[in-house]
């Protein structure tokens, strides 16, 4: 082979503590190295041109650059060698900056280490083979999982961009958490007024197919060609017939059904429509409470329904949707505050969650917008807000900040004063986190204009005293304990990963953090991509987010999908496993261990053999280290490539030396 080696100075970053000229000289002695030099900035325009020129001048068939981490510039240099006519995989990089010059003090040792690392790269390159990406077609349909504001935004943007969209929503209506909110910060404008039109757009958009009351069952395939099985859960109402007139809900005699939309502060009928602006505005039956389904009596709704839409015998149904990309927008759930025994653990009726309070505040909520205590219906005078319930608390394994609680607490304090001018609000907080546009001003208004008393400290205990509650906490600014007598306590419960999030992640083969939030490809630079090609993230499933951020991410994910679909064919990464069919004995151990189900058994002249589905393979190489005879090799990280590297560092002496 003829290998060119380029040792980068990186200004003084490398050259300061590594004798780069010496490295170039030493590496130049290797038999396969035909050209070796040092260069000031390999990644700069002249640096890259130098590499291209050397390839041409010396007829090189491979290049090693020893510079910074390959995680930074490997793609850059691959393009460089490609411009010079080499295959992009005939390139190796040695990291002599992060792994050498920046961490070692002794120049002599650093220089030797740099020589070694460059030699490893040369050794590997001698085993490199040109790899060529395969092309495959793309199904330009996208599935959005989750119909909250992020999912709605993503669906609408994709649909407006001309893509066919399948929107899958777990509950009976889209709208998500935002639909439950009364007002939004920092403008205190009506939540449903701004979300409602978007929901209607979804319902009416010709490119959007909406499956409400449905969940993703399984995901097969790969980017460009997924096959998603969607389970449509039985609603016991034929939605093609239902007009959403609501007659059934008025007459349903079973009125104790759990009202999930109203966060269980009220009950609803067994057949119900979540709320007046629900999309789709269709009735569905809660089979747990339906008298007809549980006891085979009643049947009122069936009799009343003008379009004869009631189907008591309806079963779950699964539909297969072929799509090319998937956006996960599954949102969040609320922290279960009953884990805080000191706040009553759910025993006190007037200690409620912030989202329950939203439903109380909402004019279309069960209390029609009048603030009343759930226990006795009395108007509260002192309302105490407790922040960071399930946020920034290691003791309940929620060390993270939920991000939006400070703001909605301020908003709720303002609204409380608006609704009940005689009321007094108290807010126990740890720090006020209001970094958004107009956010800090907003919290100031709550304090200054609406008289909310902010107490900096955590609440230690809430206990009833008579028909009131004593909220005891620290006032860390005053250095004292405080006790506030409250009529109503609102807990600013934090956000946690949606129930079932990890389950869905496993179906989508994306990773999630220890709290169940989905992992983006790169915290800063690839915020809506995942490590599974073709799967994107939007909204709070990636981490708690307020509405503006969720909407922004919805749009960002949509633009990623539109970008992906702007090509008719995609290229697969050729760094995938490949089977030497002659060596394969068909034992299936690779199939057993592949984390991606990317290996299948095929029949080759009557013998079972392993076959890699290249578009599914992610290139981890577990199969290669599993196969005893090395018949399946991860391209670009083959046994021989790694062995060459090991041998470059320590090889037993040959049985006889030349001399």
């Amino acid at each position, binding site marked *: 082979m003829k290998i060119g080696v380029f040792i980068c100075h990186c200004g003084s970053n490398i050259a300061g503590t590594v004798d780069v000229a010496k490295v170039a000289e030493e590496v130049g002695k290797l038999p396969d190295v035909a050209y070796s030099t040092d260069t000031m900035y390999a990644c700069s325009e002249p640096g890259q041109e130098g590499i291209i020129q050397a390839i041409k001048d010396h007829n090189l068939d491979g290049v090693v650059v020893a510079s910074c981490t390959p995680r930074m510039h490997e793609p850059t240099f691959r393009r460089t060698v490609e411009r010079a006519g080499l295959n992009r995989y005939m390139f190796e990089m040695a990291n002599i900056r992060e792994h050498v010059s920046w961490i070692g003090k002794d120049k002599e040792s650093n220089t030797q280490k740099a020589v070694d690392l460059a030699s490893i790269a040369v050794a590997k390159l001698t085993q490199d083979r040109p790899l060529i990406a395969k092309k495959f077609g793309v199904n330009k349909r996208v599935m959005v999982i989750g119909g909250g504001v992020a999912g709605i935004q993503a669906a609408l943007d994709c649909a407006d961009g001309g893509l066919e969209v399948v929107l899958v929503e777990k509950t009976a209506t889209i709208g998500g958490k935002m639909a439950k909110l009364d007002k939004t910060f920092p403008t205190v404008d009506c939540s449903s007024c701004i979300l409602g039109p978007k929901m209607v757009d979804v319902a009416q958009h010709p490119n959007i197919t909406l499956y409400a009351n449905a969940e993703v069952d399984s995901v097969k395939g790969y980017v460009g060609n997924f096959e998603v099985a969607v389970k449509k859960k039985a609603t016991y109402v034929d939605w093609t017939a239902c007009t959403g007139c609501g007659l059934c809900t008025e007459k349903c005699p079973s009125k104790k059904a759990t009202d999930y939309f109203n966060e269980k502060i009220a009950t609803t009928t067994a057949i119900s429509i979540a709320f007046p602006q629900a999309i789709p505005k269709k009735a569905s039956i809660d089979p747990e409470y339906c008298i007809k389904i549980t006891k085979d009596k009643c049947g009122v709704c069936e009799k009343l329904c003008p379009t004869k839409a009631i189907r008591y015998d309806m079963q779950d149904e699964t539909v297969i949707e072929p799509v090319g990309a998937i956006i996960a927008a599954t949102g969040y759930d609320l922290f279960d505050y009953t884990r805080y025994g000191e706040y009553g653990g759910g025993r006190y009726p007037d200690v409620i969650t912030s989202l329950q309070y939203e439903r109380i505040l909402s004019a279309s909520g069960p209390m029609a917008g009048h603030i009343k205590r759930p226990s006795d219906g009395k108007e509260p005078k002192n309302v105490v807000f407790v922040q960071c319930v399930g946020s920034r608390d290691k003791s309940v394994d929620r060390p993270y900040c939920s991000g939006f609680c400070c703001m909605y607490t301020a908003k709720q304090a303002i609204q409380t004063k608006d609704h009940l001018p005689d009321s007094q609000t108290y807010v126990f907080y740890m720090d006020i986190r209001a970094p958004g546009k107009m956010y800090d001003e907003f919290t100031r208004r709550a304090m200054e204009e609406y008289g909310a008393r902010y107490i900096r400290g955590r609440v230690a205990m809430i206990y009833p005293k008579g028909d009131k509650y004593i909220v005891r906490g620290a006032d860390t600014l005053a250095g004292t304990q405080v006790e506030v007598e409250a009529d109503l306590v609102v807990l600013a419960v934090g956000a946690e990963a949606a129930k079932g999030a990890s389950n869905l992640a496993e179906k989508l083969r994306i990773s999630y953090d220890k709290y169940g939030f989905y992992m983006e490809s790169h915290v800063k630079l690839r915020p809506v991509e995942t490590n599974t090609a073709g799967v994107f993230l939007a909204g709070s499933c990636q981490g708690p987010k307020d509405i503006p951020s969720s909407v922004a991410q919805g749009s960002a994910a949509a633009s990623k999908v539109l970008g992906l679909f702007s090509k008719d064919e995609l290229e697969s990464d050729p760094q995938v496993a490949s089977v*030497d069919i*002659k*060596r394969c*004995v068909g*034992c*299936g*151990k690779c199939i*057993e*261990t592949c984390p991606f189900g990317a290996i299948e058994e095929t029949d080759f002249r009557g013998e079972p053999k392993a076959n890699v589905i290249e578009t599914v393979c992610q290139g981890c190489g577990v199969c290669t280290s*599993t196969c*005893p*005879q*090395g*018949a399946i*090799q991860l391209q670009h990280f*083959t*046994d*021989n490539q790694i*062995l060459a590297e090991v041998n470059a560092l320590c090889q*037993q002496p*040959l*049985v006889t030396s030349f001399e």
Partner: protein
Amino acid sequence: MELLDQLKEKIKERLPELDVVIGWEQGFDPLHATPLFMRTEEDVDRLVFSPLCVHNLASHLTGLKGKKVGIVVKGCDSRSVVELLQEKLLVREDVTVFGLPCTGVVSLKKIKHALGGLDKVASAEFNGNELKVSAAGAARVLPLNEIAADKCGRCQYHNALLSDVFVGAPVEAAAEDNYADVEAFQAKSPQEQAAYWRDAMQRCLRCYACRNACPMCVCRDHCVAQSREPHWMTQQDTVQEKWFFQMIHALHLAGRCTECGECERACPVGIPLLLLKRKINKEIKELFDYQAGTKIDATPPLLSFKVEEENINERGW
């Protein structure tokens, strides 16, 4: 009826539906049995069964893929069949297992030590718990427990674990295996251990009898020991290379080895190879509470994982 006669009868019953049945017959001298491939009733008449039937016939199974094969197994041999089935390297319907109870087989090496050589054996006869041998003109009586294979002394599975036809009365006994041999070897210093392997590996011929006798070595013809793609080993006859092959063999058998000891028995230059595999088995047992070749529906431990490993104590690095 004698066990052997019963066995012959059962084999003859099933023979018409089978391509071949593997058993043992008398070999070239009175101490050596040799594998017998029975296709006719006359072949069956040559069948023998005694503590001299040391071979694990399961090693021949994967080579007979696609054929209807009957196989006579001792308890230990049956584990190999179970493991092969578990790894889906055999088709259950194609294998008919004639299971036997076994009280132990001999170690020819031990007999060799006792007699000072095996070259001149004139006769050998089992009498209860003794072996009567005459060799080089002298007669000797060897108690079976002194010449039994090591694996028999710690045998937990005297009766075939899997059989389509079980012949004879099951043996009740089951010994404990506390891996005392491994513990004892482990107690040596690393220097002593290294010297031990260096000396033993020096005489390795790289004949790969250890590999080819192994019932679980199914790669045989494609073994990495001789391939250039991948090029794990050179053909240099250094101790490092020979030793490294044994490491490869042991690790490729991790969680799969049924400890039949064929590797060690087959070695023409007497390298104690089973120790390496037993060490790994000991750890597999401790780490994953798993013994290869005991359950057809288990998953080999190194082809699976648990998110929380009970017994892997990560060392807090």
